[in-house]
């Protein structure tokens, strides 16, 4: 009896989590998969039937999918690069001890506290053509006579979206890196200095390698954020195709064109894409560090 209880106890303790995740995550994604195999348009509600992988093949043949896939890839690359490099540099900056260190840390965290949609609005105020900060500066300095439409070309819009998303995701990475920097024992640096290491070798041999696992967490969390960008795109350019990534495309397919089958298939392609990255995620999360 006692042994049985001991064996069952872990599962019993996990029940709340299993219930929450089962009902609100695993059940829905299974259902979404079954929707993705169906012809299911709200425009013809009487005609819902199984069509196998047809939704997937018609998506893969459409130009709009590849267009938004490219957008997703662009945002992913830019956000990961910006977030990891700037996040790392910020953590080095925040590690320098000064009188106002606490205040600087608090300021650094502010963008993280921002709801993503409000983040998009904040930056729209910077890049908007009429009342935007950037145009006031550009015109004020005489660099342009007319207001520049920053958000009207695909490349500029994607770049701006990436900047804006990175701005919000840098604090978390910086924080994780700072925690990593602070957990390096000071003794290591002393020993290196006694051994005659200069600042560059110390950075390359101690700081960088010991912080890498933390940077990896930053990179992986930034990539999850980057694939799931939605709010900022909507806030900056509205529900249209120009800056659409896979998620916006899936939202439009589902709720504007009311094609639930195809919309579900699209989200599955996003999951597939994410899971490939997720493998890397799990690996870096299970890593151990030896000091």
């Amino acid at each position, binding site marked *: 009896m006692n042994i049985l209880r001991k064996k069952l106890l872990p599962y019993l303790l996990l029940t*709340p989590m299993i219930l929450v995740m089962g009902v609100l995550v695993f059940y829905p994604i299974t*259902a979404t998969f079954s*929707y993705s195999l169906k012809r299911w348009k709200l425009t013809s509600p009487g005609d819902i039937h199984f069509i196998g992988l047809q939704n997937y093949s018609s998506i893969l043949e459409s130009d709009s999918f590849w267009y938004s896939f490219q957008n997703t890839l662009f945002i992913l690359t830019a956000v990961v690069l910006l977030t990891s490099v700037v996040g790392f540099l910020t953590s080095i900056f925040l590690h320098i001890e000064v009188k106002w260190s606490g205040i600087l*840390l608090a300021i650094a965290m502010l963008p993280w*506290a921002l709801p993503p949609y409000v983040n998009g609005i904040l930056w729209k105020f910077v890049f908007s053509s009429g*009342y935007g900060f950037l145009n006031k500066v550009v015109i004020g300095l005489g660099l342009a006579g007319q207001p520049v439409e920053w958000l009207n070309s695909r490349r500029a819009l994607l770049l701006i979206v990436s900047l804006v998303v990175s701005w919000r995701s840098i604090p978390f990475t910086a924080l994780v890196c700072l925690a990593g920097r602070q957990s390096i024992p000071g003794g290591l640096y002393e020993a290196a200095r006694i051994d005659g290491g200069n600042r560059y070798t110390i950075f390359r041999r101690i700081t960088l390698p010991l912080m890498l696992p933390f940077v990896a967490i930053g990179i992986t969390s930034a990539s999850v954020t980057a694939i799931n960008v939605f*709010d900022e795109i909507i806030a900056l350019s509205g529900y249209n195709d120009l800056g659409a990534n896979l998620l916006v495309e899936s939202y439009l397919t589902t709720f504007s064109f009311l094609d639930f089958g195809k*919309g579900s298939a699209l989200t599955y392609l996003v999951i597939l894409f994410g899971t490939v990255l997720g493998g890397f995620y799990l690996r870096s999360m299970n890593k151990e*560090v030896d000091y």
Partner: protein
Amino acid sequence: MLKIQHERILTKVRKKVGYLTALLIFLLLTLGPFLWTFILSVTPEYAMLEKTPGLLPETVTFDNYRELLTADTPRGGLLITGIGNAIKAVCAALTLGIPVSMLTAYTLSRMEFCGRRLIRNLLLITMVIPVMATIIPLYRLFVARQWLNDVFWLSMVYVSSYLPLTTWLMSNYFATFPKELEEAARIDGCGLLSSFLRIILPASYPIILSAALIMFLNTWSQFQIPLILASSLETKPVAIVVSEFMTKDSIQYGLTAAAGIIAVFPPALAALVFRRFLISGMMNGSVKG
């Protein structure tokens, strides 16, 4: 001798200049957008679209804040209800989310059982699932069960979206305590519950507070989920209300800016208060030591 001293002073000055430059760039890039939004929020509407080269408005008005913080005005009423709804959701998410992640993290990090790795990985991998992938079945489920516009179930959906992250942070933290500690307590006659309450819990407050902060910020920020599952006035959170100011037929930029500043205030305050615990929580929470 003099030369060496001279060089030392020079490197000192160089260091100082470098630091101050970094400080300036940091402050400009971090606070700039907030400042600009604040300036817009106190600029009178008629001055907004004028093609003046100046960045600062000639007259300053706090009418936008006055309107938004008065519950009698239509927009003020909307915003205040939205803030109230977000606070309700935060409370529900914290009361449900913290105990569930603690329980899960404790079990996954300190107990041996079949399928532990599998359950842990299954939980972690859900981090890559976008909201859009679950929202249609969830909507149907919510309609069938009449959970739409119900703060409790809405918060449960939020909890399910960040449970993996908080559980992972907590379980790494719990894993750093030596097993002998609990064994000794067990020998002294402590049950599982009391050894958890007396040994693990008191030593874990930094990570619990960090997780609470992460949950607070994420719940406050929700947009996509409530857009579909909570569209009524009684549950609509503040981010949705602000987005409606932006898209309503007559856009008032100053008002939207003011609403944005107000919406950032509570989470920014929470971040300020809890930041002390964040670093120490993350130090043990993010990488297995």
